[in-house]
């Protein structure tokens, strides 16, 4: 279980997150929706300590941390429990696909090279890249790069995988292959928090939808409730705008 309590974050005078409380059950697939600038990516980055909230606590399984008093060891422990899949993949460009996945296992989790290799190959096969082990990221398509990013996160065996708009930087025809992989691992029962604009995906795969706007959680619930019968006016407006955009897309 992951529990966020009273997370607040400001950049200068601008408050991006205002006292966020969120509970995610083990094995849940949470989708965070919201207009740009609503703080959803920042919230995700706080869980991985890529941003430091001004205040708040986080609990992942039996580990908990107060952001105000976090020391290096706490940060390390928090990062061990979460793994991030980035919008722009952020693969290590000077390393091969296999090395990208192995890096964290060998350097951080102190696996032996053989063990790390075996596990990395297994993960890469899971995302359908078993034949690209020795390729460099620059030789792959965006969709393939993102699948390496997913394998890298999976290999670390985290309690939760955080997806930060994993398909936003992709060509439309490559979105499907990445969503298929995410869908596949969602079925394995790994806890996931996904920030996305893919409404179809949110509806199909998630079992918990969170709608954020202007740094607060406006509404959350089961996908059929949020999409079918949103209670809040802002949620209605947002969904209407997104679905009407769909109607015009070619």
């Amino acid at each position, binding site marked *: 279980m992951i529990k966020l309590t009273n997370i607040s974050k400001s950049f200068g005078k601008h408050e991006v997150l205002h006292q966020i409380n969120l509970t995610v059950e083990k094995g849940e697939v949470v989708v965070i929706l919201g207009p740009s600038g609503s703080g959803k990516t920042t919230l995700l980055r706080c869980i*991985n*300590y890529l941003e430091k909230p001004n205040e708040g606590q986080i609990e992942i399984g039996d580990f908990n941390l107060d952001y105000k008093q976090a020391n290096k060891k706490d940060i*390390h422990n928090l990062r061990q429990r979460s793994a991030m899949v980035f919008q722009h*993949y952020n693969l290590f460009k000077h390393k091969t696909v296999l090395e990208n996945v192995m890096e*964290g296992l060998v350097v951080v989790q102190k696996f032996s090279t053989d063990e790390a290799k075996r596990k990395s190959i297994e993960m890469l096969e899971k995302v359908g890249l078993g034949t690209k082990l020795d390729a460099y*990221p620059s030789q792959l398509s965006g969709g393939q790069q993102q699948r390496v990013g997913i394998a890298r996160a999976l290999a670390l065996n985290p309690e939760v995988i955080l997806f930060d708009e994993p398909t936003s930087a992709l060509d439309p025809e490559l979105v499907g292959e990445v969503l298929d992989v995410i869908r596949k691992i969602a079925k394995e029962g790994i806890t996931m928090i996904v920030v996305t604009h893919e409404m179809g995906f949110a509806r199909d795969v998630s079992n918990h939808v969170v709608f954020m706007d202007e740094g607060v959680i406006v509404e959350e619930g089961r996908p059929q409730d949020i999409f079918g019968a949103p209670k809040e006016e802002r949620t209605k407006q947002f969904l209407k705008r997104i679905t009407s955009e769909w109607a015009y897309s070619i």
Partner: protein
Amino acid sequence: MGGQFDIHYVFDFLPKLLSYLHITLLIVAGSILLGLIIGFIVALPRLYNVPILKRVSQVYVSFFRGTPILIQLFLIYYGLPELLKLIHVDTSRTNVLIFVIVTYALHSGAFISEAIRAAVNAVDRGQIEAAYSVGMSGYQALTRIILPQALSISVPILSNLVIANLKDSSLAFTLGAMEMTGKSQTLGSATRHFVETYIALSLIYFVISTVLERIFFYLEARLLRHERQIIEKERSSKRWIGWRKREIARLEKGVDPH
């Protein structure tokens, strides 16, 4: 100036000058190695934004980039001993080569620090975040992710520096250092065939520069093997050379290519 031009002197001088090649290379290698260490140390406060040290490194860099190397040689050779005298260090018996290497090291250190700074900044922020995200420490991210990439980015700049340094080392003769150019002065005075010594000298500098250029080119290609685009560019330039050769052959045969 001197006697009748005689090409034989050029061949005569080549081995004599080459026997001082190791001194020239010692200056280059010593100053680049020392310069790398200085450059790395000087780059750090600016990369990590350390308040006062940042200012100091900026002043150092702009001084050594903004004054001629010849003046720096004179300043270090004549000025440094005076300063050291104040703290009772006697340098009158120190080998002139030490002063030369120190000057060139300080000079290239300024350029190297800028190269390192630019190269580190060129590694994208996202990869550093990814490194932190998989749980690496700041030191691990620096040594395993940033520096290897920064190094390959900075190879072309370093290559320029080494070659410039090789040529600049010829100025060391003004302090009486006996490297290749220094030797050429004495050869010229003794035989009164200055032009021949200069021809021999430029041949040697040219060949070494070209060799160094090739070495760095291969080093760059090797370090940047993860960049597909570079390889493609190389291929296309080879293709162009091939086309040019065919075209020249055709023109020589007198066949209209069009």
